């Protein structure tokens, strides 16, 4: 048993190490309470709906979200708009479809099954419109950045005047959380930029938090069911392990060797 504890603590140590090395890479990001962290973490429904509003009204003019469909907005574990609300949201976008029976392309109002409409037709168009920089697709953005949600949350609030000695080219901005401090996206958020329908005051901090929550959901749409299932699975395993432990003790008691 002693030996066994040694091995188990070794594995736990390995897990801890992987967290520590992860943590060691982190720059000091701004901190906030994320409702989706922890064993029972869930998304804040209202924050997701507000975050969607910030995305549509601010980010979506440059950033695509190609892996999301309008139907996702009403699915469980997400912003959970009602189906009717999601239909209205979808219909507010013009979707290019076709060819029809005459061989013509046409536009129609969006449906639930449509993917989020892209701001540009292709990468080149996006680059041309943004001084050569491609605004990255935001579907999995929080998973594609080392600092994750904390990084995105900080970056949105990290715009500053450049320190003396740093010169910036046209169309380049100073952000203290950006890798290399130079970013081609201008500061997008200002207090009161959007008008939240639930009456929340739209401070920069609030909007950053809401839209980052929304991005976390878009990157991990099944996060809530993952947490729920994980708790059940691990609880089940622990109970089974205890039962098997006592069976093992019973079986090995037949011989004089410790197990």
């Amino acid at each position: 048993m002693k030996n066994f504890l040694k091995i188990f603590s070794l594995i736990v140590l390995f897990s801890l190490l992987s967290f520590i090395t992860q943590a060691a890479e982190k720059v000091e990001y701004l901190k906030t309470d994320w409702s989706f962290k922890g064993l029972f973490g869930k998304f804040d429904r209202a924050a997701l709906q507000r975050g969607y509003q910030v995305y549509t009204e601010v980010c979506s003019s440059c950033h695509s979200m190609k892996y999301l469909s309008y139907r996702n907005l009403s699915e469980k574990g997400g912003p959970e708009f009602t189906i009717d609300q999601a239909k209205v949201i979808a219909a507010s976008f013009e979707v290019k479809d076709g060819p029809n029976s005459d061989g013509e392309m046409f536009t129609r109002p969006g449906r639930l099954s449509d993917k989020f409409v892209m701001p540009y037709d292709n990468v080149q168009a996006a680059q041309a419109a943004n001084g050569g920089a491609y605004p990255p697709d935001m579907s999995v953005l929080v998973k594609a950045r080392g600092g994750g949600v904390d990084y995105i949350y900080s970056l949105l609030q990290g715009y500053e005047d450049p320190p003396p000695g740093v010169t910036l080219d046209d169309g380049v901005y100073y952000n203290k959380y950006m890798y290399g401090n130079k970013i081609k996206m201008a500061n997008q958020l200002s207090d009161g930029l959007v008008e939240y329908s639930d009456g929340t005051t739209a401070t920069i901090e609030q909007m950053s938090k809401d839209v980052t929550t929304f991005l976390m959901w878009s990157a991990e749409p099944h996060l809530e069911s993952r947490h729920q299932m994980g708790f059940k699975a691990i609880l089940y395993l622990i109970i089974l392990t205890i039962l098997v432990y006592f069976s093992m003790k019973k079986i090995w008691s037949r011989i004089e060797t410790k197990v």
Partner: protein
Amino acid sequence: MSDHDYTPKSKFGKWFNDRLPLLTLANHLTDYPTPKNLNYWWTFGGILTFCLITQIVTGLVLAMHYIAHADMAFDSVEHIMRDVNYGWLIRYIHANGASMFFLAVYIHIFRSLFYGSYKAPREIIWIIGIIIYLLMMAAAFLGYVLPWGQMSFWGATVITNLFSAIPLVGEGIVTWLWGGYSVDNPTLTRFFTLHYLIPFLILGLVVLHIWALHVPGNNNPVGIDIKKPSKDTVPFHPYIVIKDGFALLMFMIVFAFFVFYTPNILGHADNYIEANPLVTPAHIVPEWYLLPFYAILRSVPDKLLGVIAMLSAILILAALPWLDTSKIRSAVFRPLYRQFYWILVADVLILGYVGAMPAEGLYLLVARVATAYYFLHFLVILPVLGWREKTLPIPLSITEPILGGSPNLATAKNKESLNN
């Protein structure tokens, strides 16, 4: 082993067994006499079998939804994560399963090193194990390429480029591996094919590994040959089955924690960015389990010599049964070897750490010293230790604490009869 005189009870069983002795095999596997003093380090063989089966089963399901095409691979992985029922679960099990597999195999290998399990008469088991380990690394590398993220693409570029170090034909080989002049769609499709193939090769080798194990039987923490069956052994079922089961469940708890609560922590964020041949990531790093070898590769300034050093670091293990000249198996009775063993463990961990860091300054120096020590351990320390070390007296059997045993059963028997 007493399985040859086994006869099935039922008439049909007898009829069947005379034609295909599956029941004899099942009987052999349940009765298989196992040393009763095996500790928990010995449970990782069973855990590894579980890992292999898990990877194959989840991999099959993923292959049903994955599209091996440079333009669609990344999208199809996101499709699995979002729209396939429990696709996220299957993929996270598969991705973290690879890490768990390597965690278990490293414990398994270092157990073997500590207790001298690679020594006669178990050299073939050990060598098959090394081949399995090599194939595991190949499968893991190929699998990491499939999501077609930035690390996939650039990792594939770096690793395949190693072959260009071969004089004269190197460049040609790389072009042949790529199926073109850069890592592209032909590379992806062949990597997918090979990634699908290798686990079944591993499965076949695992059967041979276990077959070869069942000829001499398990080594044990005391490291002496034992009579089988005797009071030193227990039947595999139920004793070892339940113990392995218990250890496996503990392992699964850790596994589940990674899958459900931190599924991406062992991966690299850049792999959630779709592959882009025009943008090179700031640091190209392999998965954690390949880092020690990556450190060895980078610690040699010459490309060809670096590749040779990296390959030798793995292949040298195959020669271990002959490099270790000590007749005593278990480090329990080798006071000096025990210390060098732990230095080697630390050395490999250090190599892993510097492998993750940029190859410059102090990191590079540490990597070089650690690489030199790695080879020193196997090529100099082990052979010399075998001749010079004063080992402790080993017992005659597991149950009786009578000293005067020998790692070899024949001599042990002789001494026993002398004592009687």
